[in-house]
């Protein structure tokens, strides 16, 4: 869009934008899209102008899965190094959301008191963003089938990430284990490219969508070949192996296997071992689940690239062990003395990993599936997840707009369902009441999570979600 009218001076833009933000919040809105729109219209160069002041520039985190938790970890690692970090915390991972976050933090004259900005951007919006503001660093996590109804195809999504990388001026950190992401390196020549990766023995825990495709030629029943000292690990392996090519290592993504700066070499329950450069470090973690722990490797690689040689190692490891998951991403609340884990699920790979990262034994399970725009309208993805790991325990409650779709899916997998209630609030009350003495776990889509979290606030302290 061509804007012919002269831009408003920045302080005026800020004043108007803030007014819009206040008005939106009064009306009960999230306070991000509308003020962002106002500011963009009044002063299209606003975002680039404000962010250009930052001495260490802008870092963009994108990919289909794990952006929020990874961004949060990057921010906490950088803050642990004494940097002032600006980030778009409200989960508004699009340009207007960033603008709205900025409005909350800048001075009336447009000064942003920060050393660096770390922004989580939805891949489609990031493409627009990086054309307006070139990031100095970018971290590209993965491309999984995620709301393809919005973007079309998985290869299209990979193309978006490549555009982000190409517009990055300094360094790009890529997931070595995701073939589509690793391949982005081929189209980069100016940027310094680094990788985060998995030790070969762990790769089977992280099947890509392509591995799942190719898995069909292999009969089941080969998983018993996996032996492990740790029964939990063995169970996890067995479960995950069903999804990988018969227990073999998934096809390697990068020819020649480039060395990764940070490698996840082992993990357990809230524990990870990382090879950082040449050093191997095992640390306790607050984040849980295989994916989140791998995201910690991604965050470490990025922070190492941003800071270069000036890292305070002790502070880095301290921050790493303290970094808490973003809301809903493996978040654990306590209701009446029992843990209630919220696990956000939004695509087949995430759901599969959610199921396999958290054992079903001894836990009451609820699944809540909505199909609002932010969840993705297409329910097809539920058929790309195997729910057999829940068969032994059954599912205590199925809820959400698409509760019946979910129940149908479970029925075809032979998973029994104790109760079904599409209304989330009613379902949550019943679920909590029916299992007072058991740890509980709720797998939920994004908007279902927002609603459940809000209602959980009437039972327990729930961290405010701005």
């Amino acid at each position, binding site marked *: 869009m061509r804007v012919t009218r002269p831009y408003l001076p920045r302080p005026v833009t800020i004043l108007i934008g803030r007014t819009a933000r206040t008005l939106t919040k009064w009306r009960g809105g999230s306070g991000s899209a509308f003020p962002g729109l106002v500011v963009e219209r009044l002063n299209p160069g606003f975002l680039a102008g404000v962010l250009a002041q930052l001495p260490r520039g802008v870092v963009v985190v994108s990919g289909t899965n794990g952006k929020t938790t990874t961004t949060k970890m990057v921010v906490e690692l950088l803050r642990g190094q004494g940097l002032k970090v600006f980030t778009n915390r409200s989960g508004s991972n699009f340009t207007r959301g960033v603008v709205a976050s900025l409005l909350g933090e800048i001075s009336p004259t447009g000064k942003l008191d920060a050393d660096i900005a770390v922004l989580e951007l939805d891949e489609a919006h990031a493409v627009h963003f990086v054309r307006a503001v070139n990031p100095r660093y970018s971290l590209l996590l993965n491309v999984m*089938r995620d709301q*393809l*109804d*919005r973007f*079309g*195809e*998985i*290869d299209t999504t990979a193309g978006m990430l490549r555009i982000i990388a190409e517009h990055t001026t300094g360094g790009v950190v890529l997931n070595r284990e995701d073939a589509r992401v690793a391949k982005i390196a081929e189209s980069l020549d100016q940027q310094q490219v680094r990788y985060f990766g998995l030790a070969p023995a762990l790769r089977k825990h992280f099947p890509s969508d392509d591995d*799942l*495709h*190719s*898995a*069909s*030629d*292999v*009969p*089941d*029943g080969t998983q018993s070949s996996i032996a492990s000292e740790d029964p939990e690990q063995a169970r996890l392996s067995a479960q995950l192996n*069903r*999804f990988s090519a018969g227990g073999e290592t998934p096809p390697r993504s990068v020819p020649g296997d480039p060395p990764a700066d940070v490698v996840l070499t082992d993990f357990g329950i809230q524990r990870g071992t990382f090879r950082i450069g040449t050093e191997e470090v095992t640390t306790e973690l607050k984040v849980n689940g295989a994916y989140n722990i791998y995201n910690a490797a991604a965050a470490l690689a990025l922070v190492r690239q941003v800071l270069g040689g000036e890292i305070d190692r002790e502070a880095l490891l301290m921050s790493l062990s303290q970094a808490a998951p973003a809301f809903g991403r493996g978040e654990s609340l306590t209701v009446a003395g029992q843990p209630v884990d919220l696990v956000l699920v939004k695509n*087949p790979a995430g759901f*599969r990993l959610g199921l396999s990262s958290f054992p079903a034994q001894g836990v009451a399970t609820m699944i809540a599936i909505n*199909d609002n725009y932010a969840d993705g*309208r*297409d*329910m*097809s*993805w*539920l*058929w*790309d*997840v*195997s729910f*057999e790991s829940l*068969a*032994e325990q*059954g599912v205590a409650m199925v809820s959400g*707009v*698409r509760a*019946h*779709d979910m*129940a*149908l*899916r*479970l*029925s*075809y*997998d*032979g*998973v*029994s*369902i*104790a*109760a*079904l209630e*599409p209304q989330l609030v009613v379902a949550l009350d019943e679920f909590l009441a029916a299992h007072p003495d058991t740890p509980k776990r709720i797998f939920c889509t994004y908007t279902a999570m927002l609603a459940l979290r809000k209602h959980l606030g009437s039972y327990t302290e729930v961290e405010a979600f701005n």
Partner: protein
Amino acid sequence: MSESVPAAEEPRSVPDVTHPRGVQGPGPSPQKSTGRQIRVLQLYPRDMNIYGDYGNALVLKRRLQWYGYDPVMLTYDPGDEFPEAPDILIGGGGQDSGQDRIQQDLLDIGQRLHTLADQDIPMLMICGLYQLFGHFFETREGSRISGIGILDAETYGTDSRLIGNVVAESSEFGRIIGYENHSGQTYLGVQVTPLARVTTGEGNNQKDEHEGARYRNVLGSYLHGALLPKNPAVADFLIGTAVEQRFAEKLPELSAPSSAPLSLNALTDQARRTAASRPR
């Protein structure tokens, strides 16, 4: 190609080892068999199996078991030996890259598929394979990708992607519920009949109200969802036709295990009703 015979029907809640891609039995050792096998062949599950199309294979497998038959789940990927005597063929959609990988192989087995189609073998081809079961797919640049022409249909690439919930009415199968996501638009010739008439969404193209196509017992459709879980009438058409041809008998009553507060039929009805009421 791989083949295995799943366990014979057992009562409810048997943990199943079905694979989310390519429906497999529990292991390489042959299971006891009632001798009433129905062979279900998935075409190109490795490259053409997106948006939950696996659900179609799972529904066929389960319903065959619940009707008292032994499903034998087969797969065929490029270069495999083509399985003998399949009773039902299904295929799904893929990305452009997947279509590129299977296209030549599909042409190579085209004559075999024609023969099966003319023997009235039931088939269900979704999205990408639906297009390639037609005469050709013409890209936006004007180059033509040959299909095998079992379905008298032509597909043209467009700039607009048709995405969203679909409701369509079929005289044979009643209301058909699904989700479309395609940029190719398909036009039917006189040798096929439309599968259904769209009431919500676009279906084959933006010009006419047709969704899908049928030639003998070969069904083509754009609908994911997966299609069969929420459209058991179509699943039972495939199964019933196969059973009739293989054993010259009608389908008995479905004895689905009851493992939820609602019966399978009630769950299906509710899921259909919800889907039909949701925004595009």
